Structures are given as structure tokens and as C-alpha cells.
């Protein structure tokens, strides 16, 4: 029997953009157990809902995380609108879909780049982020912000995008899509990428379901589950189906995200084609009384917002279940029995967003 050693991983580590700490219990070069300790980015955000005005809280909800920022504010606003029984204009719902999908592409490109960096393919990382910058320019042009959009508010969106700007957006996205296809081919077919990802960190379908995985982690194990199928915002008017891969390894999770980028381009095109004319925000009257669960699909998986209002302008309770939190049990499972050099790449393939998970 070999001796066990514990290797501390984090909170400050070159491969981690955000602090998380894992104690890796090793037997020779194999990881037998991973013990996480979290709390490095906890800001007490849920408690702040009790101090802030419920409309003001929309911009704090956006700052749960700077990568999935727009969808966080969208989810919060959907929950509040449901409690207020507020019907928001259809055009605002379509604009939310367009920005939501742009934020998904930006998040997936960011992730693909970080993954390439984690397995040491530096030039691929640079190329992916070069494409991401083009998308950020488009986001800035339509919303005004690069990573924090600041356009979602209770009752709709803050600004309209006129037809001319939407046409420009489509033209620019078409160029970007062609570039993305080029990058996707490298991730899908390059031999060195295959060797680094194939067969690593396998999460079988039953395990994924039992441990409650969500998002690309779940879809990479062959389960076609996607909260956008609920048809919130304008997703009910669009034609699409969830992307799945069967293998359940790191490569499958990577392929799911790549195909979702292509799908998001398609969703934006459909949304721009179908967007109706009209106002972009409804007047907010009264204060929330009652409770509601809103479920949305983040780039990282399903996110759940719970709000409970008591008729005052401060919420009584605000709760967020983020996808990274749901994906931690599957991560700890697939880390068991892996090689030490594979730890960074496996941790990355669930696309951990610590700042979401800890709030």
C-alpha cells in the first residue's frame, strides 16, 4: 500500500483565474479524493436583497458573475416580473434572447480559450480570445457595456436596438461565425487536442443524472436537458433542439459547447428575423408580494432564482442556485482516480464559475 500525500491546489494557482481551494489526496500520481474548501468570493449577495430596493437589485444580480452577467439580471427580472404579474413587451423578450445568446457565445469562447491555455495550446487560446474581442465589440455597440451589459431591468430592457443596428449585427456575426468554425475544427480534429481530452474525466449518463449535473456537463453525457425548452422570454417562438454528445468525457463537454456556439448564432438570426416592433419596457407599479421560482439556462447550465416579496420594496428572501454549485458533486466524482496533470483540465471542463457559486 502506497503512502497518501495531500497536495494543496489553490486558492492562488496559475491555472485558476478565480480562487478555490482543493486538497488533493494522492496515492503516487493518482488522485484518490478531492476535498474542496470554498468561500473566497462570498460577498453575501443574497442578504443584500434585504437592504436594496428590488429594482436596484437587478444590477447587483448582474454582478453575481461578470461572465454570465446578462442572464443573471434577466433571471432576477423574470422572477420579479412573475411576482408582480407584469407582462413585458414582446420586443423586450426578443432583445433579451439576442443579448442572452451573445453572452452565451462570449462565455463559451472564453471557456474554450481557457481550456486551450490549460492544456498548453497557447496560440489556440490567443485565437479564441481574438474572436471573443470581436463579439465584445458587438455587445458594446448594442448594449453599451463589454462584460457587464447593464441593459436588463424589471419590466423590460433599458435600450432599444434599431433595425439598422440589428442588420449590422447580423453581418458582423456572419463573419464571426465563419471564424468560429475554423477554431471549432481545431478543437474537434487536432490530434494533440484529442489526446489531451479524449477519455479523460468520464462521467457516465447515470452518474450525471444521479449527481444532479446540469448544462453542458449533463448534455455531454447524453442527456438532452436544457431549461430554454421551458420557452421563457422568446425561446417559445424559436426553432431549436438541445445539443448532446454521448461520450461523457472532456472532449464531449468541449464539443457540446462548440456546437452550442453555432446554435446561438442560429438563435440570434431567428430572433432578429422574428422580432416585432413596439416598446421595450413596461411601467413597474407596486411592490412584489408573493414568491416565485424562475429557471433559466446559463452558459454553464440551469440556474434557479427564488424571490419572496412581502409587499415592501425590499425582498424578504432572494436565493440563487447556480450551475457551478450543481456541477461540483460530479466534478469531485470524476476527479477520483485521475492523474495529477489532468486535474486542471478536468476542473475546467465543468466550466467552474466560482463567483457564481459563492455569490
Amino acid at each position, binding site marked *: 500500500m502506497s503512502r497518501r500525500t495531500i497536495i494543496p491546489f489553490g486558492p*492562488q494557482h496559475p491555472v485558476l483565474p478565480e*480562487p478555490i481551494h482543493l486538497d488533493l489526496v494522492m496515492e503516487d500520481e493518482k488522485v484518490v479524493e478531492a476535498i474542496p474548501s470554498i468561500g473566497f468570493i462570498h460577498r453575501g449577495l443574497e442578504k443584500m436583497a434585504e437592504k436594496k430596493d428590488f429594482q436596484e437589485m437587478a444590477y447587483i444580480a448582474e454582478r453575481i458573475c*461578470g*461572465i454570465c452577467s446578462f442572464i443573471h439580471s434577466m433571471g432576477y427580472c423574470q422572477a420579479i416580473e412573475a411576482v408582480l404579474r407584469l407582462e413585458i413587451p414582446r420586443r423586450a423578450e426578443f432583445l433579451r434572447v439576442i443579448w442572452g445568446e451573445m453572452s452565451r457565445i462570449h462565455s463559451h469562447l472564453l471557456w474554450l480559450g481557457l481550456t486551450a491555455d490549460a492544456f498548453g495550446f497557447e496560440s489556440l487560446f490567443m485565437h479564441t480570445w481574438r474572436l471573443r474581442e470581436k463579439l465584445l465589440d458587438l455587445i458594446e455597440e448594442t448594449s453599451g457595456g463589454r462584460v457587464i451589459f447593464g441593459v436588463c431591468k424589471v419590466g423590460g430592457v433599458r435600450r432599444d436596438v434599431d433595425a439598422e443596428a440589428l442588420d449590422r449585427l447580423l453581418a458582423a456575426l456572419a463573419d464571426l461565425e465563419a471564424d468560429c468554425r475554423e477554431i471549432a475544427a481545431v478543437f474537434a480534429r487536432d490530434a494533440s487536442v484529442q489526446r489531451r481530452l479524449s477519455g479523460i474525466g468520464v462521467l457516465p449518463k447515470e452518474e450525471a443524472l444521479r449527481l444532479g449535473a446540469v448544462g453542458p456537463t449533463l448534455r455531454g453525457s447524453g442527456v438532452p436537458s436544457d431549461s430554454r425548452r421551458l420557452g421563457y422570454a422568446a425561446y417559445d417562438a424559436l426553432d431549436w433542439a438541445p445539443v448532446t454528445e454521448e461520450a461523457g468525457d472532456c472532449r464531449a463537454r468541449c464539443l457540446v459547447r462548440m456546437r452550442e456556439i453555432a446554435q446561438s448564432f442560429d438563435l440570434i438570426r431567428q430572433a432578429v428575423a422574428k422580432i416585432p416592433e413596439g416598446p421595450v419596457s413596461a411601467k413597474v407599479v407596486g411592490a412584489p408580494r408573493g414568491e416565485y421560482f424562475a429557471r433559466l439556462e446559463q452558459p454553464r447550465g440551469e440556474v434557479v432564482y427564488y424571490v419572496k416579496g412581502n409587499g415592501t420594496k425590499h425582498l424578504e428572501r432572494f436565493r440563487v442556485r447556480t450551475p457551478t454549485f450543481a456541477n461540483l458533486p460530479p466534478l469531485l466524482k470524476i476527479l477520483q482516480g485521475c492523474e495529477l496533470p489532468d486535474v486542471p483540465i478536468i476542473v475546467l471542463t465543468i466550466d467552474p464559475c466560482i463567483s457564481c457559486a459563492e455569490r
Partner: protein
Amino acid sequence: MIPMAFFKKSPWLLHYDASSCNGCDIEVLACLTPIYDVERFGVINTGNPKHADILLITGAVNAQNEEVVRNLYAQMADPKVVVAAGACALSGGVFQDSYNVLGGVDRVIPVDVYVPGCATRPEAIIDGVVQALAVLERKAAEMKRRGAPEQPEKPA
């Protein structure tokens, strides 16, 4: 401001997220990528505090990160400069009322350069780092004037 050509050595940078929302962190990473590409000026993002000249901190410092931030600062060799990037790192930003947030980075370690913005833009971060270089030069000159601290003798 001192022009870049003045510097004889490449400044290395250590980035740490002291409880930010990620917005500023990805903008720090964006500085390294082809559009901005600060590496061509020799600014390298290192993971090792012992190699770093500049400590770039994003986010308000929360209770659990206080010790980590102090520790990272203590591990860096003199002369060293601290840059606080983003509204949260300056004052706590939107999170300053929160029970778990201590406030800006300067509550924990001395800060030399403050970079505003939520999220702070890559241009602003680069400008902040360039200003930090001037501070670094000044600190280096000051150290030289006072004389380098005595080195421990090498064992025979």
C-alpha cells in the same frame, strides 16, 4: 509619466481575485490577448508571487481572502507595487454594504495605483500598470539610495 523605453527590465505581474464578480478578471486576461497584448512590452502575467513586481488585485476583499492577500503581498520581493483594479477594489463597490466584505484593497495592504470602472476596461488597466511602473522605478531608486539590505552569507 516615464516612457516605456526607460525600463531596463520587464515588469512581471501577479493577478489575484480577492472576491470580484469576474468582470474585471476577464478584462485583466483580455489585456494579454491579441487586441491589447501587453506581453509584447514584456509585461508577463506570472502565477508566482516571488517572481512578481506588480500585484494587481480585483474585487473587494472579503473576510476569507484577507489573509491570502496579506500573504501574497508578503511573499513578493521589494520593490513592489500594488494596483487595485475596479470599483470593488477601490471601495467595495456595490458590495460595500455586505456583511462579508471588508471594503477596498487598501484596508488590507497599501495600494499605489487605483484603477476605476465597473467593469474596468482593458485600456484603463494598462494605463494603471504603466503608472505603476513609474512608482516601481521610484521605489527601486529609493532602495538603491538607502543601500540594499545585507544578504545572508552563503553556507560554505
